[in-house]
């Protein structure tokens, strides 16, 4: 099953101009638990998808919000020449197809 079929929210945004944060939120505790325990959402796999070294990817489980947060450095500082996405609001796409 794909992550986009399980999650209620999959979004990205800047956390300051130099970091990107991705939030994945679920509609039930069962869905949250199922994904939170999957290696597909581990730093190694996320690093591979975003071509960032795994040790620069932080995964934060947030059970009280039934959510998983991912934080990584932006390759280009927000608004610098060559930036694609000043707000960082469209960098969630690689997560959508993750198989759980």
């Amino acid at each position, binding site marked *: 099953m794909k992550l986009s079929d399980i999650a209620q929210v999959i979004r990205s945004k800047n956390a300051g101009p130099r970091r990107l944060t991705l939030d994945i939120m679920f509609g039930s505790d069962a869905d949250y638990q199922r994904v939170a325990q999957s290696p597909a959402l581990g730093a190694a796999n996320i690093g591979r998808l975003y071509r960032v070294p795994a040790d620069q990817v932080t995964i934060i489980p947030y059970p009280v919000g039934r959510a998983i947060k991912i934080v990584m450095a932006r390759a280009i500082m927000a608004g610098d020449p060559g930036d694609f996405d000043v707000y960082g609001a469209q960098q969630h*796409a690689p997560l959508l197809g993750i198989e759980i």
Partner: protein
Amino acid sequence: MSASGRIIAELRRSPRPIRLLGASGQLGYGTPADSFKAGIERRPDLIGCDMGSIDIGPTYLGKGEMATSPEATRRDLRRVLLAARTLDVPLVIGTAGSAGAGPHLDATLAMLRDIARTDGLRFRMAVMRADMSRPMLLDAIHSGKVTSFDGMPVLTEEDVTEASHIVGQMGMGPFRNALEADVDVIVAGRSCDTAIFAALPALLGYPVGLAMHMAKIIECGSLCCVPGGRDPILAELDHDGFVLESMNPERRATPTSVAAHSLYEQSDPFMMQEPDGTLDLSLAHYEAVDDRRARVTGATWRDSTHPTIKLEGARKIGERAVLLCGSADPRFIAQCKALLPKVADLVQSLVCEELPMDYTLRFRVYGIDGVRMVVPENEPPPNEVFIMGECIAPTRERAAEVVRTCKQFLLHFGYPGRLSTAGNIAFPFTPPEVSLGPAYRFNVYHLLHVDDATALFPVEIESV
């Protein structure tokens, strides 16, 4: 007595829960009239509005321009000012004019004075500037009081002198001083959005952790609800927790939706660094009051022993011009990622005949890789692409010359197998080249270590 003096005296005389209205997470984009009216009918003790953020990018800060339109900004300011004066409660505005530097603050103050004149209002206003003195920053660099974070390079003297504007994010202290100065309206330059709402309850002795957590949520309006939105939100804070209620009946603040909001635009949902200390949400608890209201408890606060001010600055890097065009030719689309650098080389050979290479020219190909920072291999080609060429050059004329030349030679560039020999690209309109004005980048995003996080932001009082 003015509004802040009256509220402080009233709540000290007869303690009760305090009601704060988060009127807008970004004043100037329109405030929903019905939900704002509903909020005012609940007689809040303070109306707060955040006007800006760093998320909008470096150009507004660098240029000293608002991101919002003057008409909509004035309309929103008038709505919140009239309501605050009718209720005789403090109106608190943070990060005035989108980026909170001098020109943004001055434009906001000019609008407020103009509204006061037109509507016959008189009030006492506190103003806090966020612009950082350059000699002070140079001294701070020399004495090792500026540090980098999030991988930013070390701040140099050149960064400080070259930046068009440098602001510091003020915390609760300056707002507290303003509230204690007995005023009706507070307008701050760049500020932490939490300080707008947390300063009043903190000075009245409500637990700072709860006040900060509440502020963190209501500064975004009803974004913490399901469905989330920009309607005003009311918080009622007591000494053990706070209750959140959207002023739009369609939006529900549920325990999960409110808890999830702590993720928004944050890198850590449990620990949040503020200039005055650290907000710890690891013991926060969220429960339903009813279908539409959530009660939040448990947040704690640690005062910082080493206050820091976050600095933001932007410097001009040139003049920007863009070329806007598209293609529906499968052969051109299949080869365009390889062709565009060749077009750029041709353009350079033409525009640099008599001048040095003094510009950058980039292409983003929407449909292929215009949006994503990472693109998987072997994706099937799209049927259409949109191409944006972007030039940053020392002058407006030079940037325009580059994109105009680029337009002509991209249109007629020959390549193997080309069928559409009359032109490679479609223009949605002509001219397809647009001069966008000066381009900026953030060159200051650092921490300034200070002994006193309040002293940098003195309060000026004005009678309007």
